[in-house]
């Protein structure tokens, strides 16, 4: 296909309107974080029982998406699919934007964000968290080089090699993100090896959905149409990833059911966990997997509208999926005394822990997400990212 890359040429008002709106949300996020830091985390919904909350759901979802949106570029560089070559720069740009914003949310939720420099200079190499800091910075650097090789004709011969490197790196990165949970020996919800492939497939699904949505928005703003081959192909991908996600989700829960000490947590998530069970069945499974699958299987003529709806539902469902993993895994009390029932404790050892996020955590999450979008907006307006027919 013959194509060139262009900047975003949308009407000034639309650009500035979007810019100001997103900028406002980013400021709101910063203000929320400043308030939480100043007052201390007691103003959030998090406590000594649920230590990771809404900010972590946002951050993990964004990082998982970051790795997944790169899929489009990977298909062009690693699997040589010509169809996606014009979209590869956008895909890499989205990846950077989501990665940065996910990390910023994580940092702003730290008890001591002012000690970021400590985190960057003092490493405990036994910690998967420390390794993730390397994985993330490496990903950032590789992606930046990748974008450069795609935008600058003089270095374009390297783009395929760097693209392959980025592809490999992102698989390791998603595994690394999943392993953050895998290393928690005593948290039953996390101790199966299936969590890593599940995270990879989740990233592919959510990433593709996000890519399609953003592509739709950008093509509307730029007043171009998405070629039908792309829509056809993305629909196929989404169906495959939905099926794979359902498969790994079933595998994950069956594995847990086979491990006798994990039956209790399974029962909790699948049957009697109240809000968590609802989030699982309605949010993650129904809204995020089954209904989208139904929509796409019936969307035989590849219409845009159902695909857009599907993508939105997949992303919302993905958010719930991460919430079930992060919060559900903490809400279930630790099994400190096997063969005993804790009947009294001042530290809530015998309770299912509840979690009601505060407006500040929500503000931080939304602000972070808006940061990703504003980064994208600024870069596509000032650099040539958007494909156009020659």
């Amino acid at each position, binding site marked *: 296909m013959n194509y060139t890359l262009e900047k975003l040429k949308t009407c000034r008002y639309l650009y500035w309107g979007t810019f100001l709106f997103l900028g406002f949300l980013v400021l709101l996020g910063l203000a929320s974080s400043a308030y939480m*830091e100043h*007052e*201390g*985390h*007691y103003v959030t919904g998090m*406590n*000594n*029982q649920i*230590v*990771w909350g809404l900010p972590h759901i946002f951050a993990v979802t964004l990082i998982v998406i970051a790795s997944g949106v790169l899929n489009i570029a990977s298909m062009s560089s690693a699997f040589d699919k010509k169809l996606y070559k014009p979209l590869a720069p956008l895909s890499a740009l989205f990846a950077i934007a989501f990665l940065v914003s996910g990390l910023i949310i994580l940092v702003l939720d*730290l*008890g*001591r*964000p002012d*000690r*970021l420099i*400590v*985190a960057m200079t*003092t*490493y*405990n190499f*036994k*910690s*998967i*968290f*420390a390794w993730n*800091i390397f994985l993330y910075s490496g990903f950032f650097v590789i992606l930046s080089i990748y974008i450069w090789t795609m935008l600058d004709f003089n270095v374009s011969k390297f783009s395929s090699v760097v693209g392959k490197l980025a592809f490999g790196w992102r698989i390791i990165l998603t595994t690394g993100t999943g392993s*953050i949970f895998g*290393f*928690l*020996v*005593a*948290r039953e919800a996390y101790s199966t090896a299936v969590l890593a492939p599940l995270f990879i497939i989740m990233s592919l699904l959510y990433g593709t959905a996000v890519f399609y949505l953003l592509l739709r928005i950008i093509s509307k703003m730029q007043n171009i149409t998405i070629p039908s081959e792309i829509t056809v192909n993305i629909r196929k991908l989404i169906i495959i990833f939905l099926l794979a996600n359902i498969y790994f989700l079933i595998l994950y829960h069956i594995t847990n059911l086979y491990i006798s000490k994990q039956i209790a947590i399974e029962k909790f998530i699948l049957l009697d966990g109240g809000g968590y069970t609802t989030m699982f069945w309605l949010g993650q499974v129904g809204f995020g997997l089954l209904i989208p699958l139904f929509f796409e299987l019936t969307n035989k003529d590849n219409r845009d509208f159902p695909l857009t709806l599907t993508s939105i539902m997949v992303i919302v469902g993905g958010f719930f999926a991460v919430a079930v993993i992060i919060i559900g895994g*903490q809400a279930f009390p*630790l*099994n*400190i*005394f*096997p*063969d*005993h*029932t*804790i*009947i*009294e*404790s*001042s*530290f*809530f*050892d015998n309770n299912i822990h509840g979690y009601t996020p505060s407006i500040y955590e929500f503000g931080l999450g939304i602000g972070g997400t808006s940061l990703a979008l504003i980064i994208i907006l600024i870069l596509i307006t000032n650099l040539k990212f958007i494909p156009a027919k020659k």
Partner: protein
Amino acid sequence: MINRRKFLVKSATALAITFVVPSIISNKAHAKKPLAEKVSDKQSWGIHIDTSKCIDGCTACVDACNEENGLTGFGRPETDSQWIRKVTVKSNTTDKITTMPLMCQHCENPPCCDVCPTGASFKRIDGIVMVNQHTCIGCRYCMMACPFKARSFVHETLTQQNTNAPRGKGCVESCNLCVNRIDHGSETTACEDACNNLGHSAITFGDLNDKNSKISLAMNSNNPRRLRNDLNLDQKVFYSNI
């Protein structure tokens, strides 16, 4: 190890300079051992808890810990720090009810230290697991990793802290076996003293390497066990008669 030692020596020196006479740092500190003496692996500190002596409803150990370490709460039990807590459990097979204190178990293979990205969670060579309050970034990964929920995150601004137990908003903390007292030569922890003072003597602190120490003797006669032995963490806190 060097860094940890340096950190401890530095903090100890700072305290000594501030207070000129180390023995008045805290009326609970006993100056039997010079502070400059290095922490060594000759000792392996641990605690034995005889649950048959622990009294239902008694919270003397908890109160003593709060006082020793300046853990004044804010009336918000879900976010206030608890370094030690009382739990009561019932056996699923025999219905036997046991009550006991629960705190950091000072694991020989501590998951909290394994996951800590900055190494702020560390284990001293004498077995004490603690948090370096200068390098903790407050990520709470250690709290996710601890199988005993032994850690607390400081959720609010602290005022009027005890000088012998530095703490800070935004950092994680947990029982450090009264490290400040031990480094000053004390042979007891605050919780043990409080329990003994009431005549219950359910808590015994001491050196697990010394065959004649009070903890070794208590352990010999009591058939102690570790909580969650299946996790192979080799904790230094033992329980009997659960």
